[in-house]
């Protein structure tokens, strides 16, 4: 099949994806960008299955024995931001939650050792939530609400994630691009209480120039806009 394309130049020969933004230089396949690649494939649902199959195979190969995903050590040659530094437990938790969330949405969770990844995530619970990153909470909300067989701990994790998200949203402590991601996860997982808080904020985060705002910098505003547009598209389906 002809592959002169827009998405595929970002997928490497090993099946992983390289950064498309300015967060890190270098063509190395990273878990954080491979998660974004899964998001793009989830949004666009191409009938050509090879890019997704290659992505899933990359993730199968890079899953650690203990069930988690982490950025490769070679990433340190590229001066990554703190949230991409390997060997950090909180980073491993958010990366694993991100991969699991998208694989579950795509129905490809059986292609990796998903149970081991879930056990790793469950072990990361501290009190009502996960350490450091809010991201882990909306990924966790989706994952632990959407499992076919939920344990009591899974329900507890989902409730804890929802409480943390609602609290931060209510305190206006969430960047607009993350508000959209939370609304998306809440919508897809049926977490109405979270969605009802997040979605009106998404609507209100569109600026007069048509783009959605973000505090991550103007270079991220197109991405913020696309996230909101795909949330709208998901609600139309």
């Amino acid at each position, binding site marked *: *099949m*002809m*592959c*002169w*394309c*827009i*998405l*595929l*130049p*970002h*997928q*490497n*020969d090993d099946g992983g994806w390289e950064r*498309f933004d300015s967060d890190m230089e270098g063509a190395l396949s990273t878990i954080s960008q491979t998660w974004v690649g899964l998001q*793009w494939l989830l*949004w*666009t*649902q*191409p*009938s*050509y299955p090879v*890019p997704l199959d290659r992505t899933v195979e990359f993730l199968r190969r890079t899953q650690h024995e203990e069930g988690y995903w982490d950025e490769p050590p070679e990433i340190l040659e590229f001066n990554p931001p703190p949230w991409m530094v390997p060997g950090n437990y909180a980073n491993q938790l958010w990366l694993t939650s991100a991969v699991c969330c998208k694989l579950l949405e795509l129905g490809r969770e059986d292609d990796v050792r998903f149970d081991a990844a879930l056990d790793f995530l469950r072990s990361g619970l501290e009190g009502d939530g996960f350490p450091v990153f809010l991201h882990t909470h909306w990924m966790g909300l989706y994952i632990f609400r959407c499992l076919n067989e939920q344990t009591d701990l899974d329900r507890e994790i989902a409730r804890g994630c929802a409480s943390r998200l609602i609290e931060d949203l209510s305190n206006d402590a969430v960047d607009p691009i993350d508000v959209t991601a939370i609304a998306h996860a809440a919508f897809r997982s049926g977490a109405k209480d979270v969605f009802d808080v997040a*979605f*009106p904020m*998404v*609507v*209100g985060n*569109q600026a007069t*120039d*048509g*783009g*959605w705002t973000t505090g991550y910098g103007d270079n991220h*505003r*197109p*991405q913020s*806009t*696309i996230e*909101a*547009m*795909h*949330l*709208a*598209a998901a*609600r139309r389906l």
Partner: protein
Amino acid sequence: MDRVISEDALERGLEYVRRNGSELMLALAAHATGAVSGDDVLVHPVAPPK
């Protein structure tokens, strides 16, 4: 509070990405509006494959 993102809001969003985003971003935005399909995004004469 609004319960929907209107079609007009989506059009304005698409215009914003057209003015400020890369070709990749524009393709993903256009997909959200239904203007292109997933295969249009994958198969597009823009850049050679790796």
